[in-house]
């Protein structure tokens, strides 16, 4: 099983050192195999265009799995069918390189059907060589997606049938039906003329990439004398007489001349610029921790619940943001999973001087209930002596318990008077700041501008906060 590639091109290594055994001069392909011929055409094109050293060759699983023995390029060997995905990762990282994805028909059209389709559809700026030999060569002549109806293989011993395996798949036509590919051609390796045409197609596929034109796809009807159980000349004959009848040659798509070169420029940020770019610069609001007046027994476990859209989760986040700036340990976690469906939402907030263990609040010190189901659901969980704040303009019942602090607030009503019902959660924030000893109103006022960046929103929310703060103070007095 070895053929010498005559007149070795610079696109190949001088000797094939990676090839096991003593024979470092010849390829591992069977005599008359189309892979060897195609390899040579690719190597020549890489040499002629002087891009071999910029080429990264992604080899598949199949007989050409060892393409890296030969190509004097950067070589990456990939999993079965995944070469176009691997090539995508390579090309995106190194847009200036010439990336070749080389695949057989089992690799590309069966196991890798999804990867090739999407790489083509994205128009990845790579060149794909698709060796269609209508059989699985490497694994012992099994059926490929391109095997012909009636063709005998080791897994279709009575011939491929329409009923059992369906029609052979025509990849060039499928790929050409997509918008993005710029060049799709099917060629064959049968005689001098067809090989010349194939050579041209190979060159165009590579040239397109050098010119940043996008995705090129060259399907090559290729001999597999071993799998087909034929001699090399018989194989070429069979391509001409039979295979090509099922896979018509031709250019299926060519818009390479019409399309503009892709902008492949890369602008990787230096590490030093990263924090600014991803919003990690120091907060403008610096709070002097010494000025914060909080009680000693600060630990709060707060549950906030209501309809989605009432700003329940946001209120929790704000409490935590404020707590963080008061130099407390804080955690926030939303109700998570199926609970979130059906329009009700709740979140758990913990504020503590100590490191927080479990972020879950099972027995709140404070329950904020923004609708009736929330009050009903969580009232019993509140610790003895804890507080329940509820929106009395929306909830027509009252807590049943009398061992808790009851804080009815017509939050929605107040918000409506201020001209925006959405501010009801900020009214509650104000109440908590005015009533309790775990929020410092000064800190809250410094944090609000960070939350409401638009000026008109900030204005109305500052008013809502003020209103809540007054209410809270009155109630606590």
């Amino acid at each position, binding site marked *: 099983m070895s053929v010498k590639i005559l007149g070795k091109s610079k696109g190949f290594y001088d000797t094939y050192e990676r090839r096991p055994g003593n024979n470092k001069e010849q390829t591992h392909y069977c005599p008359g195999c189309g892979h060897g011929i195609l390899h040579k055409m690719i190597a020549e094109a890489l040499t002629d265009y002087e891009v071999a050293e910029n080429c990264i060759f992604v080899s598949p699983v199949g007989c050409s799995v060892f393409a890296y023995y030969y190509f004097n390029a950067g070589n990456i060997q990939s999993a079965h069918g995944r070469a176009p995905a691997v090539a995508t990762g390579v090309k995106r990282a190194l847009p200036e390189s010439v990336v070749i994805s080389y695949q057989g028909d089992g690799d590309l059209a069966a196991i890798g059907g999804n990867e090739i389709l999407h790489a083509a559809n994205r128009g990845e700026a790579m060149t794909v060589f698709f060796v269609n030999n209508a059989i699985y060569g490497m694994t012992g002549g099994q059926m490929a997606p391109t095997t012909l109806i009636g063709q005998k293989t080791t897994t279709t011993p009575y011939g491929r049938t329409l009923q059992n395996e369906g029609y052979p798949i025509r990849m060039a036509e499928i790929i050409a039906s997509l918008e993005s590919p710029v060049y799709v051609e099917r060629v064959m390796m049968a005689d001098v003329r067809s090989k010349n045409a194939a050579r041209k197609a190979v060159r165009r596929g590579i040239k397109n990439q050098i010119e940043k034109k996008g995705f090129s796809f060259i399907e090559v009807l290729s001999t597999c004398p071993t799998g087909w159980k034929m001699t090399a000349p018989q194989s070429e004959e069979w391509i001409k007489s039979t295979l090509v009848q099922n896979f018509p040659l031709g250019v299926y798509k060519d818009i390479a001349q019409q399309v503009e070169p892709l902008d492949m420029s890369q602008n990787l940020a230096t590490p030093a610029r990263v924090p600014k770019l*991803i919003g990690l610069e120091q907060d403008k609001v610096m709070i002097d921790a010494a000025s914060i007046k909080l009680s000693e027994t600060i630990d709060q476990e707060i549950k906030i619940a209501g309809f989605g859209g009432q700003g329940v989760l946001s209120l929790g986040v704000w409490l935590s943001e404020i707590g963080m700036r008061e130099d407390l340990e804080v955690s926030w976690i939303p109700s998570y*999973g199926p609970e979130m469906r059906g329009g009700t939402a709740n979140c758990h907030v913990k504020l503590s001087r100590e490191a927080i263990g479990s972020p879950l609040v099972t027995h709140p010190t404070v329950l904020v209930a923004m609708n009736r189901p929330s009050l009903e659901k969580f009232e019993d969980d509140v610790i003895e002596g804890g507080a329940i704040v509820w929106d009395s303009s929306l909830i027509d019942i009252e807590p049943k318990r009398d061992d808790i602090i009851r804080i009815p607030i017509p939050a929605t009503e107040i918000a409506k008077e201020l001209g925006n019902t959405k501010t009801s959660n900020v009214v509650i924030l104000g109440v908590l700041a005015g009533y309790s000893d775990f929020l410092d109103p000064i800190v809250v006022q410094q944090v609000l501008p960070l939350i409401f960046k638009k000026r008109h929103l900030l204005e109305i929310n500052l008013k809502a906060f003020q209103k809540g703060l007054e209410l809270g103070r009155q109630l606590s007095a």
Partner: protein
Amino acid sequence: MAKQFVKGNEAIVKGAILAGCRAYYGYPITPASEIAHAAAQYMPLVGGTFLQAESEIAAINMVYGAAGTGTRAMTASSSPGFSLKQEGMSYLAGAELPCVVVDITRGGPGLGNIAPEQSDYHQVVKGGGHGNYKNIVVAPNSAQEMCDLTMLAFDLADKYRNPAVVLADGFIGQMMEPVDFPEPVEEFAEKKWAIRGVDGDRMNLISSIELDPDDLERHNQKLQRKYEIMENSETRFEEYRLDDADFIVVGYGIVSRMVHTAVDQLRIEGVKVGMLRPITLMPFPTKRISELAAMDHVKAFSVIELSNGQMVDDVRLAVNGAKPVEFYGRMGGNVPSIKELVREIKRMMRVL
């Protein structure tokens, strides 16, 4: 640098970018999608690549390609998606390509649900794909660690040329906590093995094939040596109130947060219990656990997991019969309450 109040899932992406990651390939899945959202937002801002792949299989292979060029690359998914990535993990390990994969575990098997579980321990820590390989695995338990351990994962991955997994769950991903973001990594060791599309690296090869049995055995032995070195120098864990503990609870990830609180409550009652939290699951703190098992004051262990009992196997191997090892687990996305944990720890302590 800035302290920010962020979700664990976002902390992962910011940490990754600070660690120099410039390629993210992913496929949406709850509860990991926010990682993709954040990557889609931030990667382009630093000139990196964000691409939504056609599947998890494609995503991990794109990472394989990017990693092959020496780029710091990552992907993130949740359990069913990690199952699909297993093929790629094996190839990455075989080709010795560094990368970071995040698994925000959800309930299984099959489609299961989107609630938090720890049932991917086996498939992540034990390799999961084919062959004699292991992933580096870190298990954060806070938003801060989602950032820090993701950054560490990139460093370890590069240092050992091995894929690293950040194994977390939906809870830590969804949870918001203050994160003190560190300074960006400025210096990276040169990757001489990478394929950069330049003349000098044409003799390099990214591949997992070794046809010759002796070569493949040598390659595998090299991998095992790597894992051994990691065991000796990269094992990380946290101990809490173990000094006089007669009962040690072992838990990782979100469970460790619950156990922490339960231990505090039990200590108030005078119960001498402490916690050991593995921070790296591979390498696993085997040595430390066997040391503890040999101590007189330590009477027994228990392992608490959101699973059918997976990490408990490793604890049992480490304890090696020296002391009893009990187990308590919840599944399906149920998270035990502190009350429940206190009750169960007391129940398990009856072995004393």
